[in-house]
């Protein structure tokens, strides 16, 4: 870990994704994009889509009728992460719990709906119940409201590294004592206007237009990307917030420790990473992909450059790459999921995202024994 920056620990994971709503790790399995049916398309169009489910069947008592899917998924994912962390919120000082949410496109589903109502009824005839829910920060607000979390509530956005950014901001809040526990979320929902933009900009993979099976796990598609949707949530805690010790809350499951990360829009990446890691290369690098579909520099190539011989490099996951800037949490969860259980942790590791000439994000990690 970086000197002088006490680590924070990831103690809970929850997600809503094409794999379904899940608490904890995502069991490794092949995933194929599915055909888009939510709007009319001219021919086959595919994406990694969250299949419809009833949020209340996953989180009893959850009411999501008036919410868009992004807010509903944030509520489900956060509940599953809290459950996975074994936290009873009634026993926690909820004024000390932060929510940090990363999104690229916010509540775009209701933004579309608002435009539709304006197109149909004029700007003076729009729906008042829709407008506040169009705000990008709505999901984070709903998470705070549902769980009664009164700590800092932040929504961040970054073209390439929104997910990494949320992890860095949450860790910063914890280190500065502005919260004891943070629910970190990242994700987006796919809608017609967004898919259309990708399509007209010629950013999509040929795999979006045919039903051929994708390459084996770890393989890459030749060009473009496959859009995806979902929300991942992590519970992050100050190490030893109760006991003052190096360890997290007594009995807590610890997936990983997170050091002080860096992100920037440029600079000497390899040098900065070596500084972050105290002069050495990572033994394991989790690539969080290129962040955005238009980026050109493969993260895995950078990871090879900075790693020592024999180091493990986990390439970007196709599904998480499709989330543009908000895929980092899924990259991390899927990397953790692919580690054999019962094995010692991999020691010094790195979550690394790059975006060609547009910068990088890097978080030192210590993956812990599961």
């Amino acid at each position, binding site marked *: 870990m970086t000197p002088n920056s006490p680590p924070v620990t990831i103690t809970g994971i929850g997600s809503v994704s094409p794999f379904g709503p899940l608490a904890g790790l995502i069991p490794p399995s092949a995933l194929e994009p599915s055909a888009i049916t939510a709007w009319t398309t001219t021919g086959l169009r595919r994406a990694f889509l969250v299949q419809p489910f009833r949020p209340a069947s996953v989180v009893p008592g959850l009411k999501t009728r008036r919410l868009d899917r992004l807010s509903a998924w944030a509520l489900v994912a956060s509940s599953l992460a809290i459950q996975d962390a074994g936290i009873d919120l009634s026993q926690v000082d909820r004024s000390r719990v932060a929510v940090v949410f990363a999104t690229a496109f916010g509540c775009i589903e209701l933004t579309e709906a608002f435009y539709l109502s*304006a197109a149909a009824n004029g*700007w003076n005839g729009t729906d008042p119940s829709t407008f506040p829910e169009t*705000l990008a*920060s709505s999901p984070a607000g709903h998470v705070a409201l549902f769980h009664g979390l009164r700590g800092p509530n932040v929504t*961040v956005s*970054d073209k390439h590294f929104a997910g990494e950014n949320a992890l860095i901001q949450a860790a910063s809040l914890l280190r500065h004592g502005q919260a004891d526990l943070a629910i970190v979320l990242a994700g987006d929902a796919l809608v017609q206007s967004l898919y259309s933009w990708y399509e007209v900009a010629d950013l999509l993979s040929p795999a979006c237009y045919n039903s051929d099976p994708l390459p084996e796990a770890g393989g890459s598609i030749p060009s473009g990307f496959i859009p995806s949707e979902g929300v991942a949530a992590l519970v992050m805690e100050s190490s030893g917030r109760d006991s003052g010790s190096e360890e997290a809350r007594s009995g807590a499951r610890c997936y990983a420790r997170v050091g002080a990360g860096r992100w*920037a829009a440029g600079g000497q990446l390899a040098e900065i990473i070596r500084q972050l890691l105290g002069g050495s290369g990572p033994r394991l690098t989790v690539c969080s992909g290129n962040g955005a579909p238009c980026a050109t520099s493969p993260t895995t190539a950078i990871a090879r450059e900075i790693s020592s011989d024999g180091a493990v490099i986990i390439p970007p996951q196709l599904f998480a790459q499709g989330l543009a800037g908000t895929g980092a949490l899924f990259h991390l969860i899927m990397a953790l999921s692919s580690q054999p259980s019962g094995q010692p942790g991999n020691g010094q590791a790195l979550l690394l995202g790059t975006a060609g000439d547009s910068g990088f994000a890097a978080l030192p990690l210590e993956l812990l024994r599961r």
Partner: protein
Amino acid sequence: MTDFHKTIVVTGVGVISPYGVGLDCLQTGMLSGKSCLTPMKDVYPGFEGTIAQVPGSLLHAEDFNSRYSRTDQLAVVATRDAMANSGYESSAFRESGVLIANTVGGLTEIDTGIAKDPAAWFRRPGRLLRGSSFPISHVADAVGEHFGIRGPRCAISVACASGAIAIALAANLLLDGAAPMILAGGSEPLCPFTLSGFNSLRALDPNPCRPFDQNRSGLNLGEGSAVLVLETQAGATARNARVLAVLRGWAMTNDAFHTTAPHKEGSGLADCIKLSMEMAEVSGDDIGYVNAHGTGTPLNDIAEANAYEIAFRGRKHPIPVSSTKSYFGHCLGAAGALEAAITIMAVRSGALLPTLRLTHPIESPGVDWLRGAVKRQPLPLAMSASSGFGGSNTVLVFGSGLP
């Protein structure tokens, strides 16, 4: 003893507002008591109400990339002004961070024609580029690219608390050593999307707003951008920089009460005020002025008055409070940053701006509602309070000198 590495200072302030470009322009306009609020129908036919708009001529001087939205343009102008105000060459900002808040991103560039057939809309000339400015993060990229800044950059979007939260998070990141300086603030344009939204909520006062008045009936929307140059005292000293103000404390809380309404007792904001004073290591008696959120809506203003009663209970004298939204409206994602700039202006000049049109203040014995003439007094410490939909609160405490 002051730890210069842990003290965050403001070494530049950039503003574009309905008064014009620059803090001096803002100060002159506000001290004169001029209101920039005008009837909306003159600017946006079909809407009724009152707004404050940035004159278009102020944006024409800059050479903007064609994919910059109005949100981006306002932020670029404010950033250039902040750089100039700091006295640094723009090249000094190469490794700086950029944290810019907003709520609408590039919605200013998208019309209702997109609703029925987005693909057809994007295929028309220029629309693909216009659409690319939609994400709220675009403003941070526009500022970074425009000035060749390659430090950490991101956008913050937390409704009407956004601008203040960007400043608070920037302060955290400076303490982490994430960048030598951070350009932090907010940018918000007027656009039919937000005008329509607040109109649908019946939150707009058709006339110039009256924050904290018993007869208040809603808010007016405004636009603008403010960007602060933040750095550690150690960095500023090494650069021999002029320190405009010290960010003594900051705090963020959430009401966890309702999606759009504040907690009736103002408890979330009261907690936030207390936390910010704790961080600044000051008491309620030390705060000389609060620049309030003060939107002019019935629910916000009473909750806020309650918050001041709770947070400043035990003070020797009522806490002086005003809402400067009465001058140029509510600038949403930029409001917290613009009001931070106004608060810095207050600690530097000792001039406490009154709330305009405040004739029958809410009864609140612990609050000295500033109205009438500008009040002048030494002001070592002042506070800016922001709140927003989703229950977020942020408080920034600025000081005129080192602790």
